[in-house]
């Protein structure tokens, strides 16, 4: 290929990786489909189209190993007699998808590609079966190997060059069968061709060592005449025969190409068969039809724009700044109105403000919508996972998907893949029983796993349910006691749901027997920690013998939240508004201490408290009033003691620099209209931390999580209010 500039190549590769991912998804889906409907030839053709596109694209990017492998696979698929049994073909296709993916990964990382001999062998085996029985298949293979069709990109390049009025030659060079060093010979021919003009396409690709083809075919633009070209390529004792044919830039043909994007092979680029005349009739009968529309799987491209996610993030950031600007303006106008209450301009100001904020809201919503992607993108990988895991475990499992069109922020979706996979694997591995067991229990022999997604208020729920044996609560309970997390007395007080929560405890899950006997386990804490990071939660419901349901609750987006702001010891913090159930007032006298924790009676409920600041000391501290934020983290209620409320605002979340100040206690920061920075607390992590904390002194209360002891001392020795002012 002609060498595009490095930038261009990098861009091309990026595009390739993206489209390749889609192709692999399609390949997986088709293979699974084929497994279900083994007799459907159309699926085989679809697989072939996919593989063909992958081959062409990877060749265009210079990923030789991938394109060669895809090429071999495509060859097998092209056999009309039907390669092997369809189920076996499906197997190989799935394996191929895995190998291709691994190759893509190593290309992307720039590491060397592992040879895929295993797959190659399987492909070859697949090809041999029909070949052994029907010689026709074999001949066809030969014919094909002499008839390389240029890939889509190459055709395009050739077409463009033709339109520019350049002379394009199709050259076919037959290497002398007696040549001692065919590999070196091929290289020489390559060199000669490269020197003669600009090569648009060449087969085999330079350096393709395993390929034993004795013919080199190329399309190149050159100033030379046919004879000169022939002379250049004719290297004595290496080349046996050279055929050169000039392609004519025919108007009528060009029009045909433009008009016929699909089924028919681009006629003007079909190789002239002169070089291998004896093969011609056969290749004619094989109806080698190069794949129709290699664009299969990419729906109506005209209206879809592929944009780097970073660019959208950029726009979203700008919108965020605008929102900050809006609240700045808001404050200024309020100040202005206070100062000049009679000024007539006031009304015009506020009209303009109202208009601006309406447009801003629309803009924000529009940008958010760009980031939203249907959950389908996540779900579509599961048929494959379920199939593989079920096979590994020797179980029969059906996957039911619903709610695929539920929209979710792309960044959340990306983070969700791993935990969701985990839950699904667990459900198959531990939840679903073996077929015999199921029949014994009076169930269908085939287990069902359901993946569902739906909106609930401002949140998205993703559910994974199975109809398996459920989690054995007693086993979890016993385990919790055995590992010292609970005393049996405590345990008796906990509800089943609370006991089940233990499976999310780190370390708990990895413990031996629970995983084997009752199911769930390994790495459930990972699932929970990812969900916490996403400001979501995960809950589990289980009925013995009937199944288990994991419910992942996620915010619609990570970028902008409605938040309640409050102060603790003169510092401003915020929590998501939808975590706040109610706000109450109380005095220190209402607070009681149970063990290490403070509680408060709110109406008829005992509410555990979290004191993020420090307990007041001094004679009249009992009369001090505070605000109580009743929050819900997961399904637990919790009272947050705060000193003052600072209002409710839409906050644009900005991440803290991971490297330097990252802490799980803070999920992000935001900038207020007056330029102040407010930290958004991560309630789930705070609750988690508080429950782990043990004060040194017996009888002391957990407090001051956000403030270190030393700082507290320092703060007390300086008058309040001077804490955050620097010259």
């Amino acid at each position, binding site marked *: 290929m002609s060498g595009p500039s490095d930038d261009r190549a990098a861009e091309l590769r990026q595009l390739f990786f993206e489209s390749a991912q889609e192709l692999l998804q399609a390949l997986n889906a088709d293979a699974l489909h084929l497994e279900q409907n083994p007799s459907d030839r159309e699926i085989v053709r679809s697989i072939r189209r996919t593989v063909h596109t992958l081959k062409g694209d990877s060749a265009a990017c210079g990923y030789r190993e991938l394109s060669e492998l895809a090429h071999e696979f495509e060859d097998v698929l092209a056999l009309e007699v039907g390669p092997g049994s369809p189920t076996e073909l499906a197997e190989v296709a799935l394996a191929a998808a895995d190998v291709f993916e691994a190759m893509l990964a190593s290309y992307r990382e720039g590491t060397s590609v592992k040879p895929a001999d295993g797959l190659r062998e399987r492909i070859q085996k697949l090809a041999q079966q029909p070949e052994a029985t029907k010689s026709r298949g074999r001949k066809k293979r030969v014919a094909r190997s002499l008839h390389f069709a240029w890939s889509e990109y190459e055709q395009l390049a050739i077409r463009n060059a033709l339109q520019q009025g350049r002379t394009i030659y199709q050259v076919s060079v037959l290497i002398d069968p007696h040549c001692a060093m065919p590999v070196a010979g091929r290289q020489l021919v390559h060199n000669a061709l490269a020197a003669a003009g600009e090569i648009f396409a060449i087969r085999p690709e330079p350096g393709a060592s395993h390929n034993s083809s004795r013919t080199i075919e190329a399309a190149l633009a050159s100033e030379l005449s046919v004879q000169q070209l022939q002379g250049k390529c004719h290297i004595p004792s290496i080349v046996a025969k050279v055929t050169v044919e000039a392609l004519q830039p025919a108007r009528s043909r060009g029009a045909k190409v433009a008009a016929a994007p699909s089924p028919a092979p681009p006629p003007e680029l079909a190789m002239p068969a002169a070089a291998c005349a004896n093969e011609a009739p056969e290749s004619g009968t094989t109806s080698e039809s190069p794949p129709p529309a290699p664009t299969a799987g990419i729906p109506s491209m005209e209206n879809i724009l592929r944009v780097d996610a970073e660019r959208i993030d950029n726009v979203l950031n700008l919108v965020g700044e605008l929102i*900050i600007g809006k609240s700045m303006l808001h404050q200024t106008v309020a100040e202005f109105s206070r100062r000049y209450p009679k000024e007539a301009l006031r009304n015009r100001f506020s009209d303009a403000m109202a208009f601006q904020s309406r447009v801003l809201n629309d803009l924000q919503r529009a940008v958010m919508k760009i980031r939203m992607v249907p959950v389908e993108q996540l779900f579509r990988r599961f048929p494959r996972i379920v199939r593989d895991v079920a096979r590994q475990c020797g179980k029969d499992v059906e996957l039911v998907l619903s709610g695929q069109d539920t929209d979710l922020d792309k960044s959340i979706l990306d983070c969700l893949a791993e935990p969701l996979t985990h839950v699904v694997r667990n459900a198959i591995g531990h939840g679903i029983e073996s077929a015999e067991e199921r029949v014994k229990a009076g169930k269908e022999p085939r287990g069902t796993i359901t993946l569902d997604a739906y909106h609930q208020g401002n949140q998205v729920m993703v559910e994974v349910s199975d109809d398996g044996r459920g989690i054995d609560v007693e086993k979890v309970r016993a385990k919790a006691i055995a590992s010292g997390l609970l005393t049996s007395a405590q345990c008796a007080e906990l509800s089943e749901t609370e006991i089940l929560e233990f499976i999310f405890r780190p370390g708990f899950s990895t413990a031996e027997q629970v995983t084997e006997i009752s199911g769930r386990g390994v790495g459930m804490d990972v699932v929970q920690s990812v969900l916490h990071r996403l400001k979501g939660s995960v809950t589990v419901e289980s009925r013995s013998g009937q199944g288990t349901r994991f419910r992942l609750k996620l915010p619609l987006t990570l970028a902008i939240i409605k938040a309640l702001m409050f102060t603790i010891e003169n510092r401003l913090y915020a929590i998501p508004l939808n975590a706040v159930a109610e706000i109450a007032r109380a005095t220190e006298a209402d607070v009681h201490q149970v063990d290490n924790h403070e509680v408060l009676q709110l109406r008829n409920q005992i509410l555990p408290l979290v004191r993020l600041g420090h307990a007041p000391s001094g004679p009249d501290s009992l009369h001090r009033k505070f605000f109580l934020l009743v929050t819900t983290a997961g399904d637990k209620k919790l009272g947050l003691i705060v000193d003052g409320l600072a209002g409710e605002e839409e906050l644009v979340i900005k991440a*803290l620099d991971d490297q330097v100040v990252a802490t*799980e206690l803070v999920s992000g920061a935001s900038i207020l209209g007056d330029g*102040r920075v407010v930290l958004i607390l991560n309630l789930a992590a705070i609750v988690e931390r508080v429950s782990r904390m043990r004060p040194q002194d017996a009888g002391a209360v957990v407090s001051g999580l956000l*403030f*270190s*002891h030393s700082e507290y001392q320092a703060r007390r020795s300086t008058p309040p209010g*001077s804490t*955050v002012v*620097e010259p």
Partner: protein
Amino acid sequence: MSRELHIVGFQVGRETYGVPIASLHEIVRVTEITTVPDSPEYIEGVINLRGKIVSVIDLRKRFGLKENTNNRKNRILVVESNGRLTGLIVDSASDVLKIPAEDVEGAPAVFEEGGLNCVTGLGKYKGRLIMLLDMNKLLAQAGPKRDEKSLNGKPEGMSARGAAAK
């Protein structure tokens, strides 16, 4: 052979340090800093740099200086490393210094150990020694220290800015 290094010099305590001008984003006055819970002591917190949240390290604490003299000359050097912005509180910042490349020596081996392995070289400028800092190394060291502290589940010390302000 008259290659010159362009260095932004700044004082921390009695010493002069320098960072390559290419890694400097800007120099701002010390503004309001929001402390972040759970961070090591030398992390001052985060600031709002025209709509960006930038974490700020107090280099004086980072280099183990006990007495902090806060005055009007204090600055925050906003440096860029690996695409991130980080603020460094310094006692004062000076002009751009042009140091001929041959006047820069490698850091003494002693520095390799201990907390000073972020010093990549010593530059001589008008009779003064200027320690050239490698931002990536300086910031990378924030990692391990933090971990051991936060592991034991206790709230970790935040900077005592109240005291610093006095």
